[in-house]
């Protein structure tokens, strides 16, 4: 039996690889490596904001996404498909639409945002918390999707055995399901974090752009492109490297 890949498929696959990789190679070619560390150093403020926002967003996304993944994997209620579609929607939604939706609902004059403002004096737009909300909004689906897949792989017999030994549902979830799904959950954390780190459209639309408060690294790159394109190239490469690392980590915990 031959396992050769048909030539026409291979040719199109090569075009696909080039399309995806050439822009990144072009970026590497344009980076002023001598000034790289200096450019990164100048962006310390944006780096700090990105670190804080992506960490908090990941924490929130895991707190909400893991239970959602469990509900979707184990729930037998009607409307589960609709629920899954609703939760996963931000993955395919244009980020600017996510931002517009957040602004319409959580903005100062939105129904939920207005309530937050009236009751607690909390306004989300133009705050670091708003940037966290925007990043969480887009990160939750990734965590949910991967967590659901992980929970589906959990051996139910082990849970049944735990049940016969007297373990309640929460204990079975924590002591049996979580350890088995751990690699998938780790991958979900990394993917969710990477998505939160890269968030641009929803952030600039909902949280605005203020250095030291809501200007994350992607926003800084967008504005730097006009002032100092070379610095924008350096910061872009930094994010490419971080993304590559994130994919490598996610893959290692996923494929085992």
């Amino acid at each position, binding site marked *: 039996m031959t396992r050769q890949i048909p030539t*026409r498929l291979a040719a*199109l696959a090569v075009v696909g690889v080039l399309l995806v990789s050439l822009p990144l190679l072009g970026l590497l070619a344009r980076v002023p490596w001598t000034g790289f560390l200096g450019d990164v150093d100048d962006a310390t403020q944006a780096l700090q904001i990105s670190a804080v926002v992506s960490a908090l967003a990941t924490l929130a996304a895991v707190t909400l996404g893991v239970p959602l993944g469990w509900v979707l994997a184990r729930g037998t209620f009607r409307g589960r498909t609709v629920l899954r579609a609703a939760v996963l929607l931000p993955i395919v939604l244009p980020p600017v639409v996510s931002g517009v939706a957040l*602004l319409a609902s959580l*903005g*100062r*004059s939105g129904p939920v945002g207005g309530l937050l403002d009236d009751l607690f004096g909390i*306004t989300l*737009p*133009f705050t670091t918390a708003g940037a966290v909300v925007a990043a969480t909004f887009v990160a939750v689906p990734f965590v949910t999707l991967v967590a659901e897949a992980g929970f589906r792989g959990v051996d139910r017999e082990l849970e049944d055995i735990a049940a016969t030994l007297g373990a309640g549902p929460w204990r079975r979830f924590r002591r049996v399901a979580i350890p088995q799904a751990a690699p998938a959950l780790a991958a979900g954390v990394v993917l969710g974090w990477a998505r939160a780190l890269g968030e641009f459209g929803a952030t*600039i639309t909902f*949280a*605005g*752009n*203020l*250095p030291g408060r*809501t*200007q994350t690294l992607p926003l800084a790159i*967008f*504005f730097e*492109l*006009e*002032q100092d*394109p070379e610095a924008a190239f350096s910061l872009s490469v930094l994010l490419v490297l971080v993304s590559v690392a994130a994919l490598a980590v996610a893959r290692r915990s996923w494929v085992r």
Partner: protein
Amino acid sequence: MQVMAAALLVMVAGACAGPDSELVLGVASSLNEVSADLAEAFSAVSPDGDVQLSASGSQVLVSQVRGGAPLDVVLTADAATAQAIAALDGWGDTVRVAGNRMVIAVAEGNPLGIEAVSDLANGELTIVVAASEVPAGAYTDELLRRANVRLIPASNEASVRGVLTKVRLGEADAGIVYQTDLLVGGITGVPISDAINPTVDYYAVALESGGSRATEFVEFLLTSDGQQVFAKHGFAP
């Protein structure tokens, strides 16, 4: 396979089309509406082909020209951006085509009673401005410097339209925009005294890819027909 190859061919052909008859205008955000009318008026006198519009922040226009976007004419909201684009393209000259002033945009009816630029220094207010990287932001910086007002904005928006939107939606209490932006409605403008208000100049640059039709368009902007369209949208000559 043939279908896919054909689809690819169409996509590539589509990406390359343009120089013959279609004229693509890259315009600064604040020129979005007037440009649509200018394009229509120009089509009436020069019906050779479509005129397409692409509006973005001026800093994006520079990146687009640098990146080889298929633009034929660029309209910017300041001299510096136009000069940068003319230098990148190395073909047409910058031509001043219209003027504008800055104004404080507040919610309809001015419920907070904002009267002057100095009122914006109040830390209780949520103020948005355009980022220094875009022309409206550079004009705003100049205006605040002249007024000797230091304000801490809630956001440096990517375009002047972003500022306008945040005020219109009630997310911000005030913002600094162009006089002409007020025509979109749903918003009240508080005038800024002439002593501190910078003069805003709009420039056009015909790019090499647009050829003679691009030059023709820029010349049209200076005719009485073109200037009338600008005036209708609140621009100064």
